[in-house]
């Protein structure tokens, strides 16, 4: 067994264990923290597969920012100690059935390996961030810039939709306070 395989097995075990722990832990904050560990492990697996850019994205965006957001939401809603129960009935049963179907599908695919050779292709491209950057700034320059616009619109959305009092909050907060006091007087 090569060292790469051993590292992979260890990482895979950690990832699966984290996923299970995330599901079973009763405290939502612990769940979120297990998810962070899971994301980080997956990030290392990406690194092993020779995809450093995706690994960096996984760590910074998912394990970093999105999990911060998750934790904020959990703390915001006070959902750290959720009561166990199903908001919609029968979800567990459906989940179990679909899970079993998926597992059966994977097992069948592994046993028969039919069509696998057609699906698996090999990419012979340079996946280093620098090469990726070159490609991104040459061929995909337009999508790159459009991405920044999408992010900008997301900023606007985040600000508008979370503003504390959207009706009474124009440009300058100070002016507004004056308005209010004037009205009271």
């Amino acid at each position, binding site marked *: 067994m090569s060292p790469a395989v051993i590292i992979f097995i260890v990482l895979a075990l950690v990832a699966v264990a984290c996923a299970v722990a995330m599901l079973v832990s009763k405290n939502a904050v612990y769940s979120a923290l297990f998810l962070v560990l899971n994301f980080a492990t997956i990030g290392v697996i990406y690194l092993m597969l020779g995809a450093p850019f995706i690994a960096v994205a996984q760590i910074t965006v998912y394990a970093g920012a999105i999990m911060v957001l998750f934790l904020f939401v959990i703390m915001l809603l006070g959902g750290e100690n959720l009561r166990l129960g199903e908001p919609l009935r029968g979800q567990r049963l459906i989940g179990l059935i679909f899970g079993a179907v998926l597992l059966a599908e994977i097992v069948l695919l592994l046993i028969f390996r039919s069509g696998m050779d057609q699906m698996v292709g090999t990419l012979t491209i340079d996946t280093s961030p620098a090469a990726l950057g070159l490609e991104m700034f040459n061929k995909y320059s337009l999508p790159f810039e459009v991405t920044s616009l999408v992010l900008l619109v997301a900023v*606007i959305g985040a600000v508008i939709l979370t503003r504390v009092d959207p009706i009474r909050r124009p440009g300058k907060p100070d002016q507004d306070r004056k308005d209010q006091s004037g009205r009271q007087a």
Partner: protein
Amino acid sequence: MNSDLLTILLPTLALTGWALLLLLVDLWIPREHKGITAVLAAAGLAAALGLTLSQGRLPAMTDSTVMVISDGYALFLDVLFLASGLAGVALAHEYLKRANIANGEYYALLLFSVAGMMLMAHAYNLILIFLALELLSIPLYILSGINRPRLESEESALKYFLLGAFSSGFVLYGTALIYGATARTDLPGIFAALQSAPVNPVIFILGAVLLLVGLAYKVSAVPFHMWTPDVYEGAPTPVTGFMAVAVKAAGFAVLGRILMAAFPTVGKDLTPILWALAALTMLVGNLAAITQKSIKRMLAYSSIAHAGYLLMALVPFSNRLVNSDVQASLLFYLVAYALTGLGAWAVVTALEKQNGDGLKLEDYAGLGKSHPWLALAMTVFMLSFTGIPLTLGFWGKFYLFRTAIEGGFTLLAVIGVVTSLISAYYYLRVLMYMYMRAGSPSVERAPWLQVTAVAAALAVVLISFIPNVLLNLAGNSLLLLP
């Protein structure tokens, strides 16, 4: 970055830059003078419209990275999107003041959305198509929720966002599978790969179907229409009007582009799916509209029904003989629907009261007596929606059915005719309320709304005398077929 790219996208980039400036300039415009922002937004749209029209003589071309394309199809749609944007500004200005949501961001977001639509019309690569889809959708998620303390508006934004994100996932997954099967994301590359390289048919068709499903969500085709009535009802009415018209047009623009540029060789797999989608959408949309009491919900179901008619135009997409007819009737119907729809939504906006009342059918009682011009405009729109002669809607449906029959889909055309007859019931009911019931409707004094409604009504009637001119414009806008 190559110069062709800049040439092709000049109007779009100009509009984007203007939107960016507007967003920042608006921060220094005081709350009472948000009219300035509206005027600036309209000026930006008009300037982009001028730039687009000046590109009319540009030869059809793609840039060197095959990311975007400039052809008559895209230019035609650009004009449609920019005009819808202008109507969106006209509809919004007074409404925002009335509803006390004088957010200047409205206009910047509207411009970003229009820019996303224009990008979508020009996109020739699945990656860019996805990003353009996001750029046009995200501002609209925000705009649906801009009337925020109102619960309906929040519900609308949340539903639209969740289902929109879900459908974007479908588009992205479809794109990934198509890339996996063909190793290409540019549309002509996919077309070429389908003809030459060995392509795993299962993966490719799966990807294509996922792409279709994602876009079917965006154009609210049955069975992916569940979100439409709730979102349209809860969103501020000008936003709804813009969504119902422009987003639908953008969705069909890209559907038509992908189907005709990349997928013509897999017609036998995709045509049955499109057929079923079109038939279901026409039937469900029209039948559900009958029972609606709220005019907003009724028009929402009507927009679903019209998505069905538009899908019908695309069903014979793989038939090379009727290819230009497909495109011409699609674009023609889009224009007819856009003019009629924007006008109708302008009337609805004019009758909505500050507290969100005035949206029931009963509220239209007596409009014929109290506001004869507005009622006449609404009459024109309802007749055009139904497809009665002397309106643009009639010619739209006429060309549509002709294309379907020429393509060999007579049964679909029959379904179209029958559902149009059904639709007469609920469209004409509005007329009955306006002219035969007594009542005293209150109409907001909103000159721009009335200008929009009357101009749209005039266009719907006048262009119906010269349908060939519009049809030729739509038909001449040749797609670059590889």
